[in-house]
């Protein structure tokens, strides 16, 4: 080769720390050490996997990811490699397939997933997996999102040759308080075993038996009772592990999944809310490597029943007289009456208690309202608790950081408000999204003594019962908005279901109040037609939110400030990389 010749692809790739790999006839470049399965999937060549999970160790046990692999011929001693016109060496294909999950890419490697070798290998693997599979898809919860079902449709044989009796194993075993096990449906990928060992660190699951009698089991007397146990339901590629909460409640193909975030703690775990019509059926984690990896705690996952609960507030309630009972009312007169009343209140005798469970947009509008009324006593209700060293933050409010950024409040003046109410200095109270008789520890007797109590919340509580006016807000599943997690990442909430009954999104209520109270004064935020517009107004006014927009946040969130707080599970995952 003369020096004028262009550099070979292998040298060009090596300069970037990458290697050239041919996948189904096309050349790509991947970083060294990339697994073949990841490489193929990243360029849209689907490699089916049961046992391989990017967050777990490689088992290589299912053999579903078999691909045809080739390398340039091994050189005889002293021989010089020859390159084709395109600068690559000729690939010699291996006669047998290799697993794509346990092998990494190499320079000038060839991968074929569409040849006979691969097709036959996949068909044979599926035939073996199906020999003892009960084929009870019509009553299986996993049907519709089952990898075995999908791969059999895509790569399997339309007929089967197995006529012998199937091996019977355990069915509907209550392996834990929230998880059921069906050993017959299991394909023995051991994802659940590895998850419990590697991520949770409680090795309660294992494989017992031999050959066809192999089965996943818990040691007698132990249960799969970790607060992360339901993640095995998500990672189980088949219907072997099923959620006892979701079992037989809905076929998954009827459900709509909405990407949003969890509001049970400051971590802001990324989730999907699965709903049909106006009903939420389940919550599953959504991958975000900077927040929750692929996991979420069971306690947060199962805390969704309140969305469709009987005690939701579906219409505005108003007392016509201090002693009269609350009566249902229409929005417009209620907003007018509230605005009128708020204008009459003396600012010194008025306080706002807002929830750090509200979105930034709602906090911003609440702040504007207090400011325009001249009210200075405003604070959030802090919720400090125990973190679990994994994904549950010690801050049990989902948006404390947002409250600090938007309102500069952290709950430190709540005591003053509480004392003011007790001593009768505060005569009027506006409560947004809180039951103040709970964590804020304001007894109902004190609330009753107030001249005016305005409450906005989604569910009936001791506070709403004591209120003069109740404005029905919505739960996290019904609203758009943004929150900032403990690590300083702003994330989006999306609407999974429409506001139930006559309830309205909290930001909408607050914007209407602002308009009604102050006419044209309050500026752009009160006239916003969506939460996104409120965000734009905030972004223009608040330094930390500079440049932030609904689009820039995206589904994965956007780091806006450095709080110095990190999420333990993510720290561990990054350290192990």
């Amino acid at each position, binding site marked *: 080769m003369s020096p004028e010749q262009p550099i070979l692809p292998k040298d060009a790739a090596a300069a970037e720390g990458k290697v050239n790999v041919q996948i189904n006839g096309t050349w790509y470049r991947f970083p060294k050490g990339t697994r073949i399965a990841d490489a193929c999937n990243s360029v849209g060549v689907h490699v089916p996997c049961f046992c391989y999970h990017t967050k777990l160790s490689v088992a290589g046990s299912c053999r579903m990811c078999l691909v045809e692999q080739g390398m340039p011929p091994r050189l005889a001693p002293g021989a010089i490699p020859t390159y084709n016109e395109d600068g690559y060496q000729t690939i010699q294909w291996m006669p047998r397939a290799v697993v794509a999950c346990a092998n990494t890419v190499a320079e000038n490697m060839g991968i074929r997933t569409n040849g006979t070798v691969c097709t036959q290998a996949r068909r044979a693997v599926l035939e073996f997996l199906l020999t003892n599979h009960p084929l009870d898809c019509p009553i299986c919860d996993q049907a519709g999102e089952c990898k075995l079902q999908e791969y059999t449709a895509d790569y399997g044989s339309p007929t089967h040759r197995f006529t012998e009796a199937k091996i019977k*194993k*355990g*069915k*509907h*075993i*209550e*392996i834990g*308080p929230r998880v059921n096990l069906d*050993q017959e449906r299991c394909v023995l990928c051991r994802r659940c075993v590895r998850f419990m060992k590697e991520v949770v660190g409680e*090795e*309660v*699951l*294992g*494989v*017992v*038996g*031999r050959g066809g*009698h192999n*089965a996943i*089991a*818990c*040691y*007698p*007397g*132990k*249960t799969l009772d970790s607060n992360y146990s339901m993640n095995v339901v998500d990672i189980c590629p088949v219907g072997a592990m099923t959620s006892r909460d979701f079992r037989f409640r809905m076929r998954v193909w009827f459900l709509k999944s909405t990407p949003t975030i969890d509001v049970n703690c400051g971590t802001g775990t990324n989730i999907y809310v699965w709903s049909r019509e106006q009903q939420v059926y389940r919550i599953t984690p959504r991958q975000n490597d900077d927040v929750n990896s692929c996991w979420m705690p069971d306690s947060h996952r199962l805390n969704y029943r309140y969305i469709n609960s009987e005690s939701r507030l579906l219409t505005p309630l108003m007392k016509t007289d201090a002693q009269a009972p609350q009566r249902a009312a229409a929005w417009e007169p209620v907003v007018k009456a509230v605005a009128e009343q708020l204008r009459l209140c003396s600012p010194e005798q008025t306080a706002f208690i807002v929830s750090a469970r509200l979105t930034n947009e709602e906090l911003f509008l609440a702040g504007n309202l207090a400011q325009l009324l001249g009210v200075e006593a405003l604070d959030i209700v802090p919720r400090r608790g125990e973190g679990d060293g994994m994904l549950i933050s010690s801050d049990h409010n989902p948006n404390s950081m947002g409250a600090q950024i938007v309102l500069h409040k952290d709950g430190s003046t709540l005591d003053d408000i509480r004392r003011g109410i007790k001593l009768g200095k505060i005569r009027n109270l506006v409560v947004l999204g809180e039951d103040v008789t709970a964590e804020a520890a304001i007894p109902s007797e004190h609330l009753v003594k107030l001249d005016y109590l305005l409450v906005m919340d989604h569910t009936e509580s001791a506070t709403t019962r004591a209120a003069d006016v109740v404005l029905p807000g919505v739960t996290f599943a019904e609203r758009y908005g943004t929150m900032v997690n403990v690590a300083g990442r702003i994330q989006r909430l999306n609407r999974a279901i429409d506001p139930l009954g006559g309830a309205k999104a909290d930001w909408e209520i607050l914007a209407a109040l602002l308009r009604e109270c102050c006419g044209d004064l309050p500026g752009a935020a009160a006239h916003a037609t969506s939460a996104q517009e409120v965000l734009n107004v905030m972004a223009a006014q608040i330094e930390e939110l500079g440049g932030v927009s609904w689009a820039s946040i995206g589904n994965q969130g956007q780091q806006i400030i450095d709080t110095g707080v990190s999420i333990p599970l993510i720290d561990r995952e990054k350290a192990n990389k």
Partner: protein
Amino acid sequence: MIELTDDICALAKDVPSPGEKFYPVFEPTPELAAEAHGYVTMYPEGREQSAVLPIIHMVQEKFGFISARSIPWIAEMCKSTPIHVAGIVSFYPGIRRKCPGKWHIRVCHTIACAMSGGEDLLKFICGKIGVKPEEMTEAEPMAVSADGLWSIEAVECLAHCGFGPNVMVNDTLYSQVTPEKIDEVLEDYRRRD
């Protein structure tokens, strides 16, 4: 709370056997722990789990079988978990979950031995020691005689295929065994009693 199927239950339940009177009952003594520790130290730090098989063999040799009580102890010894040990115990047919008789007879039924008379031999020995061949099932391959003296099991290759049929009594291998020869062998063991 947990609904135990037969398969899972079997992990923590001992099958009673008449052979138990010839073996000591498993007791986790300090001496036993010291012996187990000896195996653990043969492996590098962090790989204590590698000692699980030697310890299982040690327990089986001393107590005849792996009892439900010994599984958590073994797990503790090699820093493993009961489910991991149970997985290993249930995987190997050579690791027993039921106590054998004082004399444990293994009859090879791999092809060379089976064809040279091993199959008939198995039935013959069953008759001699007073167990029914049907007692040997897939789930429970070992049959123990009512007096606990004998147990019998059909096993895979004993690695002496040129001289079949092969029979092993405890750790002694007998080759080219005929009904007459095994009669003598069994009589010999009976006299040792």
